[in-house]
């Protein structure tokens, strides 16, 4: 008998769509079940009894919201045994999740067989094509939602202690069936522009040649271009085979509504709107078929036919130590952009610089590199690594974006971890700098000098600077407040600045620091840390919210 299935993703803001749930959707639709998808707490969904509910999980620091979501849907199944939880957090801390939710069906690792879910066909759900249709059932738009998501290898041979991959995918193996994956998506959902590869360490694979060739042959050669498909046509073809697919009908209508703004001629537009209106009043395949030819005549000429470049993104980064000349030569057959090389430790500088130069020799022009901090590193290590990127850029004329990634231990339930050489003030200072640039740091010299300081001393000074003086730099520099602060800061002795750091590290957001009567110099400088930028215009208010969240 058909089952009613609810897929749930907790309401955190994430960049990538829930691939696990998308694959589960494909699996259940294949069984003939009705599938729904929600993000967060939706009363209408809670208020039903589902045959099964699946809740996905992500980072461990989303623990609380994840638990809340799972418990919210607990009473929406006949038995708690019908609620399943899976994903990254589930795999990393299943015990704690079971305890906090009372749910026993917490799945660890990959869904390599449906037997894990109590079915018997022995289907490897992890290898199914993700169902992109469900993404249109929710209002939330994933920033990177409309791409191919695939992988050619699982696991990573490096067992870096800061990384969760060894726990999530303990074994390294090449699984490559990229061609099938892309073909399947193309035939089902129409072509996607870019390819996001979730490999953790593709360079380790002995089949790298093969993998790259397959990627190239799947439409990602260096010269490959892309034009957006006519989704009306793609969906119509699908509906012909599956006319009762209401989800797809709605998706088609949503696409048509979106496309409205691309209709150039006024006369056409009026006609187009009329058709959409009548379609939306009575949405079924029969009606759509009746209008299809007319609609398609309006859509086709307005489709953007200019060829676009398409890119391959090894999203998890490439291992600098393994990037030999030979491998780089292989990689250079496909349009990788951005090229990501991790720079996790200052000790890796030699490997890193060599790898960068190798890549540049093969024509790579744009890098986007992960830089781990707040781990065992010292605060100055971050500056040195950013400086190396800046110098490489100056020397070799390429663009390098740095992605400083704050380390949080696996299993930590929130984000307030402080590394052994770090403190809260320094972390906030870094986050304040990143906030202005949305987390990405350009390596342009002028930017680097301004944002992080042209010398180590300037950098250390920046770390001590009151938060709002960093975020609203020009505002406070213009007022002369920053200079006043600097003068006071420079007058402090070693002991005094230590004391100051101690005090401001304890400051909670919104806390006013009390006057320190015992030391006149400190009592002069402390009020600078109470400065809160307040702007009346809305744009800045939204930024204020971001800042509030940051703290």
């Amino acid at each position, binding site marked *: 008998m058909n*089952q*009613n299935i609810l897929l749930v993703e907790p309401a955190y803001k994430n960049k990538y769509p829930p691939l696990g749930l998308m694959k589960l959707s494909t699996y259940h639709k294949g069984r003939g079940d009705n599938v729904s998808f929600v993000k967060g707490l939706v009363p209408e969904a809670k*208020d*039903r*009894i*589902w*045959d099964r509910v699946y809740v996905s999980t992500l980072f461990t620091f989303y623990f609380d919201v994840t638990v809340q979501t799972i*418990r919210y849907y*607990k*009473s929406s*199944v*006949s*038995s*708690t*045994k019908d609620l399943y939880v899976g994903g990254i957090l589930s795999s990393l801390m299943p015990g704690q999740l079971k*305890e*906090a*939710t*009372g749910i026993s069906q917490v799945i660890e690792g990959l869904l390599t067989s449906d037997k894990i879910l109590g079915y018997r066909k022995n289907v490897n759900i992890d290898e199914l094509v993700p169902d992109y249709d469900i993404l249109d059932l929710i209002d939330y738009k994933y920033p990177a939602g409309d791409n191919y998501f695939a992988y050619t290898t699982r696991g990573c041979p490096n067992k870096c202690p800061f990384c969760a991959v060894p726990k999530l995918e303990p074994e390294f193996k090449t699984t490559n069936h990229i061609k099938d994956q892309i073909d399947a998506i193309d035939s089902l959902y129409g072509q996607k522009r870019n390819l996001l590869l979730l490999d953790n360490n593709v360079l380790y694979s002995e089949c790298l040649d093969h993998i790259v060739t397959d990627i190239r042959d799947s439409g990602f050669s260096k010269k490959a271009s892309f034009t957006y498909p006519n989704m009306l046509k793609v969906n119509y073809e699908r509906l012909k085979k599956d006319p009762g697919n209401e989800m797809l009908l709605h998706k088609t209508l949503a696409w048509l509504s979106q496309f409205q703004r691309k209709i150039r001629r006024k006369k056409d537009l009026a006609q187009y709107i009329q058709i959409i209106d009548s379609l939306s009043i009575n949405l079924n395949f029969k009606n759509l078929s009746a209008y299809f030819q007319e609609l398609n005549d309006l859509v086709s000429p307005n489709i953007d036919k200019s060829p676009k470049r398409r890119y391959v993104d090894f999203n998890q980064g490439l291992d600098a130590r393994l990037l030999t000349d030979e491998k780089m030569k292989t990689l250079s057959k496909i349009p990788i952009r951005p090229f990501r090389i991790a720079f996790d430790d200052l000790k890796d500088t030699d490997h890193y610089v060599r790898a960068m130069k190798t890549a540049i020799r093969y024509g790579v022009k744009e890098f986007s590199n992960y830089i781990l901090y707040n781990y065992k590193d010292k605060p100055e290590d971050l500056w040195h690594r950013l400086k190396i990127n800046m110098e490489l850029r100056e020397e070799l004329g390429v663009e390098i974006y740095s992605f400083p990634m704050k380390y949080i231990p696996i299993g930590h339930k929130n984000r307030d971890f402080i590394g052994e050489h770090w403190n809260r003030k320094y972390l906030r200072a870094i986050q304040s700098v990143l906030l202005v640039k949305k987390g990405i740091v350009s390596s342009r010299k002028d930017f680097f000098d301004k944002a992080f300081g042209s010398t180590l001393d300037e950098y250390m000074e920046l770390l001590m600077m009151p938060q709002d003086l960093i975020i609203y730099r020009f505002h406070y520099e213009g007022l002369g407040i920053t200079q006043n602060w600097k003068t006071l800061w420079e007058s402090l002795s070693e002991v005094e600045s230590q004391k100051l750091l101690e005090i401001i590290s304890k400051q909670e957001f919104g806390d006013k620091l009390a006057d320190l009567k015992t030391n006149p110099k400190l009592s002069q400088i402390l009020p600078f840390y109470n400065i809160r930028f307040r702007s009346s215009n809305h744009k800045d208010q939204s930024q204020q919210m971001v800042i509030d969240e940051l703290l």
Partner: protein
Amino acid sequence: MNSREIVVGKSTLETLTLGMYKNPLVVYREYIQNSSDSIDHAIKTGLIKDNEALIKVNVNHKTHSISIEDNGTGVSGKEVYNVLCDIGNARKDYRTDRGFRGIGRLGGLAYCERLIFKTSYHGEDYASIITWDGVALKGLLRPDNHESSSLGDVVHKIVSQDVAEEDIDAHYFVVTMQGISVHHRGTLLHDNDVKQYLSEVAPVPYDHQQFMHALEIDDAFKAEEHRFDQYKIILNDSAIPIKKPYKTSFITGNQERTKQRDNVKEIKILNDEKGRYSGWIAITNFYGNIRDQSIRGIRLRKGNILIGDSTTFNQFFLAEKDVANTWFMGEIFIHDPEVIPNSQRDDFEPNDAFISLKESLTELAEKFRKEYRRDMSEYNSTIKQFGNIEKRLIEIKDEIKTSGVSSDQNREQLLKEKENLEKSHQKTKQKLTKLVEKKGIDEDKKQVLENIQQKAECLEKDIIDLENDIIDAPYSTKCDLPSSYSKDVRKVYERIIAVIDAYFAQDKETAKNLRIKIIEELSVKGKSKKK
């Protein structure tokens, strides 16, 4: 300036004698106050030693008289008339002496027929006797009596002076109130009332047997510049001198329901940094207000004599004024010579010194209130709250175990209640975390709280288990309808079945058959439409 002599009218006397004090027992205080001043002088001049000082109070029911005697310096024959007959002109230093206005000694006149002062001064071989005639005074003070109108006149008419032989080394002062008026015999001659009053008000020692911490307090102030004096006061020749009523163990709570035995766990010694006062408060479990009114409340004393009563300190609490002080036990000894009791001695003169002291005492009181009263109140209520949640959880669990869930409505109700319990549990947990950090919570209580915190963690698991139990509890109609039906439809179905079950309570077979029919009808959603 006008050179005319100012006449002080006789009715002034009335205000001094008849109208000054609300509580007649205050006369004891006034005489003891004078006695203690006199003893201080005697000790200072080496006339007697510390341990020889004695104040004897005798209450005679047969003769309706009261006498209060001390072995202080006495008053010399030369001065006696002026000292004892001048009004409001005491030669005392307000800065050091307890009584300084020179009016208190006439207080007794209001309650007796004759007020007799007998005193002998060391080195004089006679005793002076001054008698005030209370009956005559009342006669003269009647408004229709125009015999004498000035104060001096009246005093001359009612005061008589006499002399008696006395040992040359004798030194004492006795005040005797003879013929206590009928109205006041009940109070003034009531042994227990007098004893109670003296124990609370007079500058007497602590009862070391009942109050374990007495020695600690004595020791703390012995070395102090501002030591406070204690006098041996004997009532009716009793073998046991009067002691302050403080005790280690006491009852809290005014009602049987809230009654609890509490005890003093330690003493916190207080010392004003400016030296204006010192004192102590008892650290107890602070279960509630102290029932025994003779020990409750922080009290103010000057020269170790109580100022006001157990409620005088209430004014320093910023909130819960009348309640807060009843939770505490303690004494504040005022040393600041500029802080002066008012003439009623029920509070202080509102001068600058007092205003500044008030600030400091308010700060102190607020600190106590927050740290002890509020924290403890919170402590006790949090523990209670936790117990209630725990209890209710077990009840629900048992309920489900024994009788299951009777309907989806019931299930919803239980889930709702579980949710509420969980919310209050979260609140309790937050309170616990805050409480552990509070200053008013001592190590023992911290331990208790930490144990509860551990239990609270377990309780969280219990709540989750309960949630599972409620959801998973088998219930007869839960699986009747296909899952495609919404909860609302299910609820209606539940209610219909509930009505059927109730209606056919005597005919379960029919009820069952009806239900099967309904299930069949509803087994496919929308089936009947197609028909």
